[in-house]
């Protein structure tokens, strides 16, 4: 028997040692703690809670809590549905419903109400509205995701520098963020696009650049609160350098609000894209975009109300889905709610 085994024998409540070697975790919390003197032993009774906790991971935990939130799951299902429809659109929308760009100039082919041929009707150029809504989702989702990815990338770096190092750097970055936030959002976006030129790519660049200050602020405050924890001091006392501190110890604990905020921001970015396209500053015709479709439908509101109904419905549901998802993630990722 090695030295350690001797120690163990000495250190443990003797019955720990003789305990059945069941390793499924059921008994371990009942095991005595190290004590020489048995009279002082306080066996901790096993609780169902701890046993049920057995093999779960942190993300497993979050998923478990998210699953219980019906609204969040509804949002998730809708987002996945929209993504699947968009990804597979070339396979079934184009052949069976029509090309979103194919105009039909035959007399009476335009502004048709919904029918078996065109389930959402046709627009003023005789294009199938359903096909345009489906392909518009591509634009909206791409803009939403890429724009938020840009915001998050800039925001995370800025927020991390600001929150972790503090001092002058913090002041510099945060005052910079304030300057960005001081401008009216849409106006700033329009101004940026006026400089860059209206195009699909410039829309997400503009939205992405404008989004970073909020992300940086959220991340900074999250880092500041994480920094107060003793495990951060412990990591420092362990000899961790700045990079290890930021990326291994602080970020994983501080990133949850960003996941939540980022998810909700995708919804916001979709709305901004629609607004910019509506104003003619975004995606240019004939590319199908929900905002552009709304804009086209506006003068025909009375004659063909379905034209604005479909893209409006698409924007509403998709944005709502992202917001509900974000809301659910907030509850699911909150470590403090862990029981």
């Amino acid at each position, binding site marked *: 028997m090695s*030295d*350690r085994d001797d*120690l*163990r024998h*000495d*250190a*443990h409540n003797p019955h*720990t040692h003789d*305990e059945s070697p069941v*390793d499924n*975790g059921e008994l*371990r*919390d009942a*095991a*005595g*703690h*190290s*004590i*020489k003197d048995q009279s*002082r032993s*306080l066996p*901790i009774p096993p609780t169902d809670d*701890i046993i049920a*906790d057995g*093999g779960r*991971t*942190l993300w497993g935990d979050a998923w478990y809590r998210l699953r219980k939130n019906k609204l969040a799951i509804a949002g998730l299902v809708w987002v996945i549905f929209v993504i699947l429809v968009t990804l597979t659109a070339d396979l079934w929308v184009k052949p069976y419903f029509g090309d979103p760009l194919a105009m039909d100039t035959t007399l009476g082919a335009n502004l048709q109400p919904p029918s078996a041929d065109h389930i959402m009707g046709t627009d003023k150029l005789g294009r199938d509205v359903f096909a345009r809504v489906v392909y518009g989702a591509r634009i909206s989702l791409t803009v939403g995701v890429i724009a938020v990815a840009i915001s998050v990338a800039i925001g995370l770096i800025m927020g991390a520098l600001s929150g972790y190092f*503090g*001092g002058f750097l913090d002041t510099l970055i945060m005052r910079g963020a304030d300057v960005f936030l001081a401008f009216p959002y849409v106006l700033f976006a329009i101004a940026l696009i006026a400089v860059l030129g209206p195009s699909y790519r410039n829309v997400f660049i503009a939205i992405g650049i404008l989004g970073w200050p909020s992300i940086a602020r959220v991340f900074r405050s999250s880092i500041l609160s994480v920094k107060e*924890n*003793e*495990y951060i*001091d*412990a*990591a*420092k*006392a*362990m*000899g*961790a*350098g700045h990079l*290890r501190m930021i990326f291994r*110890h602080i970020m*994983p*604990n501080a990133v949850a609000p960003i996941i939540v905020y980022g998810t909700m921001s995708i919804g916001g970015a979709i709305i901004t894209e629609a607004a910019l396209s509506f104003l003619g500053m975004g995606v240019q015709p004939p590319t199908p975009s929900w905002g552009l479709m709304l804009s086209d439908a506006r003068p025909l509101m009375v004659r063909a109300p379905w034209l604005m109904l479909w893209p409006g419905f698409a924007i509403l549901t998709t944005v709502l889905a992202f917001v509900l998802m974000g809301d659910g993630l907030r509850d699911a990722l909150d*470590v403090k709610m*862990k029981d």
Partner: protein
Amino acid sequence: MSTLLEVRNLKTHFHTRDGVVKAVDGVNFNLEPGKTLAVVGESGSGKSVTALSIMRLIPKTTGVIGTDSDILFKGESVLGMDDAGVRSIRGNRIAMIFQDPMTSLNPVYRVGRQIGESLILHKGLKKKEADERAVELLDMVGIPHAGERAKDYPHQFSGGMRQRAMIAMALACDPDILIADEPTTALDVTIQAQILELMIELQERTGTAIIMITHDLGVVADMANEVMVMYAGKQIEYGTAEDVFYRPLHPYTWGLLESLPRHDVSEKGILLPITGQPPSLINVPSGCAFHPRCPYAKDVCRTQVPQLTSIEDGHSSACLFSGDPGFRRETASPSREVV
């Protein structure tokens, strides 16, 4: 025996809006290999700041260590090292355990992974080797089913187990010095006893020197070779545990010992608290900092600052009257040993 750690005239001051807080003001001590030094005092007496100064964990923005201060680890000045040098010592040669085990473990990593981290960092171990070593360490600190438990997350551990895990983490690299900052304060009394016994046992095995920071004199009596009593950032008494407990010199130490509940005194024995509040560290009372609360204070105490002077061999006190043979008190040991 060569001196492991020498602290020379340590002065750590914090510059705040209200003035300069002299958290530590001229502390000297030596630590020999394998020995235990207890640092005792009320909240705000500078115990923790002393420890953090040794680890160089004082925030640079507000905290200033005096230019004539020095901390020598194996003869090398810790204060003079660059960041990389300090990091190579932290967690490797000098490790630290924090007060609250509930918050000292990073919630997003498995316990085993956290224990192994310093091995990866300092000893260049591979992840897998570090994981294996972490299991051995958990086993060493008396966690039953260590192999299984290493895969758990901190929230699946009880408070006592987390403190064991913290000890395992601190001892991972087999450090020369273990600084324990009130390691038992946040724990139940029964668990406290277990943790202390564990530390004593591990010290016997590994030969690590321990700096035990505590306000619990019972803890000190069980473990310490030498005791340093601090008040308002200054050392007021220093000596072997035996001397300080049985032949205390300073009236403050008398007060500490008399305010301790005792199991060998009848129930009617009245606890004598030290009246008043610990002084503000910005406006430290003139003369002896303890004079406003000292029942023996004379006029001279208001004006003359007592220096730490050696009264007997290896036993010194910072009281103007300590040299007076009549100014003595005998006390019984405040050991927490339950009979």
